[in-house]
């Protein structure tokens, strides 16, 4: 009598099915409106990444890694990219990278302002926080359900899922970063007559940057994970390589996809992690970076300009 199987009273699955059908039918313009900018940005990024010649791209990433992080990470990035090309999944890797870079862009555009709003108003934060909690405890896999129903299948709906999954850490860290700015700093701003806008741009945001970059690192990693998972709803990229490999019991192909994913993930993690670490402010110009990178065998740093600089 008390067997759990007999207690099926609420047909929640039916309700949700009906509800989503209603949403998909009646709110279609809204979802199209959401889909359009994502699609545009994604196809642009995808196009650009596929057009850049391989050696140029490797050099660019190495330079970027050197400038943002360190020489070691630059070297690691270059070797990883070359390895990915050697394994024959360069194009797929670029598709995955375009999913990630687009997600980072959209997350920053949406996430940072929401984070700022949350930091400035407790009532906004009280509404947003439970939403973030739910979003971050939901397994990435489960995101696919509403996305498929509302946006369909393919790479663009996949990107929507990536953005949805990756935005919460950035919102959270932006909020925390601004709230953690020392009280005395904020008071200094107020005491010298800063208005709300000046307080934000002159004091709160600059001082919150390291924390926000920490959030960005989390966002990048979540986007990386999600960009693989969305292969299940038909998104292209390295995830699809793994999925197809598994489907055909082609272990070798699946492993190649996996290795490429790990290399890409480590590269992105190292670069963004170093960005978030407070480092002594020194001018590393692009030109100097290039010079230093070309003399990769030399260990010592180039002398940095000291003293008065023109302003």
């Amino acid at each position, binding site marked *: 009598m008390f067997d759990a199987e007999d207690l099926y009273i609420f047909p929640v699955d039916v309700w949700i099915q009906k509800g989503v059908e209603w949403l998909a039918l009646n709110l279609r313009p809204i979802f199209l409106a959401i889909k359009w900018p994502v699609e545009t940005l994604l196809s642009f990024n995808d196009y650009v990444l596929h057009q850049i010649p391989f050696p140029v791209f490797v050099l660019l990433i190495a330079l970027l890694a050197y400038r943002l992080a360190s020489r070691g990470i630059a070297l690691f990035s270059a070797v990883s990219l070359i390895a990915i090309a050697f394994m024959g999944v360069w194009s797929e890797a670029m598709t995955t990278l375009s999913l990630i870079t687009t997600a980072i862009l959209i997350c920053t555009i949406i996430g940072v302002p929401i984070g700022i709003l949350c930091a400035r108003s407790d009532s906004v934060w009280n509404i947003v926080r439970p939403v973030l909690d739910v979003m971050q405890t939901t397994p990435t896999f489960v995101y696919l359900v509403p996305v498929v129903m509302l946006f369909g299948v393919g790479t663009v709906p996949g990107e929507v899922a990536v953005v949805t999954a990756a935005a919460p850490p950035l919102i959270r860290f932006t909020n925390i970063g601004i709230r953690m700015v020392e009280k*005395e700093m904020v008071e200094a701003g107020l005491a010298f*007559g800063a208005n709300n806008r000046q307080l934000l741009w002159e004091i709160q945001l600059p001082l919150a940057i390291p924390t926000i970059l920490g959030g960005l690192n989390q966002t990048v990693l979540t986007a990386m994970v999600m960009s693989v998972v969305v292969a299940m709803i038909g998104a292209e990229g390295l995830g699809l390589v793994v999925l197809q490999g598994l489907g055909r019991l082609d272990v070798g192909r699946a492993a190649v996809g996996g290795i490429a994913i790990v290399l890409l993930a480590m590269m992105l993690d190292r670069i963004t992690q170093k960005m978030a670490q407070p480092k002594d402010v020194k001018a590393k110009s692009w030109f100097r970076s290039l010079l230093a990178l070309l003399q990769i065998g030399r260990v010592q740093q180039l002398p940095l300009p000291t003293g008065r600089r023109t302003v």
Partner: protein
Amino acid sequence: MQMLAAGSNKDDVLAKTGAVVGLNNVTLSVPAGAIYMIMGLSGSGKSTLARCINRLNEPSSGKILLDGEDLVPLDEERLREIRRTRISMVFQHFALLPNKRVIENTEFGLKLRGVPLQERRRRAEEVLSVVGLARWAYHFPHELSGGMRQRVGLARALATDADVLIMDEAFSALDPLIRTEMQDELLRLQRTFKKTILFITHDFQEALKLGTRIAIMSEGELVREGTPQQIVLEPGSDYVAAFTREIDRSRLFDARSIMTAAQGISQTATGSVTTKFAATGEPVFIVDADNRILGALSATDQRRVNGGTSPGPLLSGEYVTVPANAKLVDVARVYRSGQPMAVIDESGKLIGTLAAEQILSRIAATSHPQPSSPGDQNV
């Protein structure tokens, strides 16, 4: 508020309403151009009081008058205006922006006010050289020592040309030696800038050294207000007396504050004196028509002059003069046993005499009634 007006104390209000009484009925008036010290231990409400002045803390009632304008009812716009142009602030932990260079920190207030880049750079460079940091303008705050950072904090406050400066425990986070250096620096700057400075401190020595006037706070209430000398001489309560016990009086009081006011005996142009000396046994100073000292006349010689001798040849050069504003520690240094001490003003005129016991009794913690008799001898 009603409870306070009805005579409840801080603890009652806390128990009944959960509200902490920060400040209760404190009225101060700060003279322009003074360094006004607000002194108290932690939790005494001194910072709360100072922060009410520029409304970093919102007072729940009362008035803050700046040149007759009440700051409490001001709207955001006007308040910002006041904060940008009239009142600036120096913070305990400097509150410099780590991502901005020294010069950018210095010009911060001007930037908020919308002063064009070139103009505010020029002004910032000017102020930085006043505090001796011109060389460091293009460095970052983390490259500077604590004392230098607070100089930047001071420069930032001076750059806006505000006439009121709130210094909230500005030197408390500094090492003792650097603190002394900064105090001297502040006194030096104050001679040129003549700001009205509200200086919050928990250090009574600092209050005595810097203060034109001192307000002592305890439990959100004002317990004593006055000049440093007044407070040390008449603490008024055991609470204040506890602070005054350990201090170095010899550096606080000057010769003028303890001297016996005295005029010398004028010598006429013909070299005679017209007065008969009373037999006090004390030496007397003979002065010319401008009240400048010609010499001292010992008790024995006074009797001879009374007997008709001309004082001229009897005058002795064995006396010590001290300026009226000399601190007692310096007075004690020039003291010679057996020689009378004369106190002179800036123009060299005799205005009083000093005896060793006067110095000693003031330096010792006992408070003697101030000798207030006018000159013993009159012309």
